[in-house]
């Protein structure tokens, strides 16, 4: 209970600090912060299109964040989500074309599983190296980001891309997921699609897995204290392998939004650093999958909001805002929890 109050305070404080810094930044470059905030809020919230686009942008962040949350809970610093999600998405997009002979639902399911496995395996390798060679997963996952992107570019250019483009063939229309605007006219023109529902389900399942199953407890235990976990009888190496596999595997689903819900193909660079932004999203939510839904939406608001004010200030300012948020949450979190710890100690004495 106390913990959650503490979280609310530190998250609010960090957002407030971010607001102050950004306002100061805007003033310093001679812009009117109120006008800019106003534009962002009206663009995002006053139209179905704005809301739809925001949720559309939040979708892959939620999914990728859930995958990362599993790794982070096990204290595995997976910085390789960007590579992992591209690997899986690429394989899914290729597989779905190659499996055209199968009935549509089967082809989709099989290709998604194939993507999941590929991403998962790219998570397993750093996990294995960590266990066997004691090399930090941080460095290996970063290396794999570069390796995977280079590999995909190679395969794309030489084998799979439509000529003179950097994307794969388009999947059959019948394979596309429904769009919200198909049923709800309010979302007219927005790309919000069934992937969003899948993202919410992913968050719910991940939440349940982490907080309500023995396995989730074991992986968190291993994250808190590896040595004690071994003594308690948890097979920590197995936990590391499984968490990395599942966590990395889940990131592959982040591509569905683009492939099955939006463009219908895999395109180089489609992920636009989702794998890194998701790290920030996950940290902001304190690795809680339900919280990740909200932090993803916040980051999506910044993303879409950035576009809406691009006339006034470069939309890249939102990247700065995201960076500030993440550093703000890290620091306010420490300060608030130190304060609470002191308060608790004083009460005890």
């Amino acid at each position, binding site marked *: 209970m106390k913990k959650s109050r503490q979280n609310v305070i530190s998250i609010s404080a960090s957002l407030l600090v971010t607001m102050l810094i950004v306002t100061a930044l805007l003033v310093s470059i001679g812009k009117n912060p109120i006008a800019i905030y106003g534009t962002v809020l009206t663009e995002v919230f006053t139209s179905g299109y704005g809301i739809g686009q925001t949720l559309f942008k939040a979708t892959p962040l939620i999914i990728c964040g859930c995958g990362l949350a599993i790794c982070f809970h096990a204290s595995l610093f997976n910085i390789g989500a960007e590579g992992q999600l591209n690997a899986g998405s690429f394989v899914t997009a290729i597989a779905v074309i190659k499996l055209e002979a199968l009935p549509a639902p089967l082809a989709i399911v099989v290709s998604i599983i194939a993507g999941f496995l590929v991403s998962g395996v790219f998570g397993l390798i750093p996990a294995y190296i960590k266990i066997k060679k004691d090399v930090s997963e941080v460095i290996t996952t*970063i290396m794999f980001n570069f390796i995977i992107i280079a590999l995909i570019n190679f395969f794309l250019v030489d084998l799979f891309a439509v000529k003179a483009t950097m994307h794969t063939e388009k999947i059959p229309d019948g394979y596309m997921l429904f769009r919200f605007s198909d049923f709800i006219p309010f979302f007219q023109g927005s790309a919000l699609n069934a992937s969003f529902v899948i993202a919410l389900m992913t968050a719910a399942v991940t939440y349940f897995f982490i907080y309500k199953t023995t396995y989730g407890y074991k992986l968190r235990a291993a994250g808190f204290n590896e040595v004690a976990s071994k003594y308690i009888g948890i097979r920590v190496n197995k936990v590391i392998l499984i968490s990395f596999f599942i966590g990395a595997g889940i990131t592959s689903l982040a591509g569905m939004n683009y492939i099955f819900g939006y463009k219908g193909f895999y395109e180089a660079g489609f992920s636009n650093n989702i794998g*890194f932004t998701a*790290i920030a999203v996950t940290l902001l939510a304190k690795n809680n999958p339900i919280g990740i839904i909200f932090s993803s939406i916040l980051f999506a608001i910044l993303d879409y909001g950035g576009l809406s004010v691009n006339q006034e200030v470069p939309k890249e300012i939102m990247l700065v805002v995201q960076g500030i948020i993440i550093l703000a949450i890290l620091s306010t979190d420490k300060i608030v929890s130190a304060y609470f710890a002191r308060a608790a100690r004083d009460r005890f004495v």
Partner: protein
Amino acid sequence: MEVATSILSFAFLAQVLRLTTPFYLGASAATYSERGGVINISIEGFMNLSAFSFAAFTIGTGSLVAGLILSIIVNLIFSFLFSLFTVKLKIDQIVTGVGFNLLIAGITKFLLVLIFKSSSNTDRIEGLPEMTLFKSIPFLDTIFSDYISIFCFALIFISSFIFFKTKFGLRLRSVGENPWAADSLGVEVRKYKMYGVMISGFLSALAGIWLASNQNSYSEGMIAGRGYIALAAMIIGKWNPVNVFFACLLFSAFEALEIALQISGTNVPSQLIQMLPYVITILVLIGFIGKTRPPAADGKAF
């Protein structure tokens, strides 16, 4: 054939040594920080920041010297902030590193558009002045083309001396190995950790400046993972200035090879060549070196 001859030439070797500069400066930056027990995965970000600020300040002030000094100051400010987060507030160092990388990427992209109205690069700058000292000596003129490169090679000896022969080095290493022991002997642990991080900021500034200067501009994404490779070189070189230098040579050799292949126009796909340094890193980490042993209290808060 053509490639083979070009690789076996002195010119190629000189090229390899020259390209080592940013790797070795970055890897040294990481080493100073980690010897003090602070994992700094923001080397990439710091290099990016200084490359941008060097170009921007040089254009803004019209003076290379001002650009150089100001961009170093910017990096020192950011590395001081980094040490506040990791040393003072004791926030997880890797998380902080990710945060700084994201923030710096955002800042450079934003300012690039804001100041230069471009999402790809700055205006052109004059690079650092060429060294005239070795101008007439064929091999050395490529390697020692500028003051930063000279400093970089000198750094092998400077760092070895600092780490193993000076009071500062002894204390810096002690806080990375066993801060509690160091503290019990009156060593100001946090101060030394901060020094380590600040030196890291300074050296990565030089790495970024060198890159921007050689390219005569700043362009988005120009660091291209060199900061991360520098971290790998540090690990492969086992946190020792001399070994780290040889690890860096490995990586600069690949970069030189990549350039040689591109020029010769062979049909080896460039993506695969670009991938090589990262694959090599992984392979080396898996197989070709024994267990790595980072400073005992690396990454731990004090």
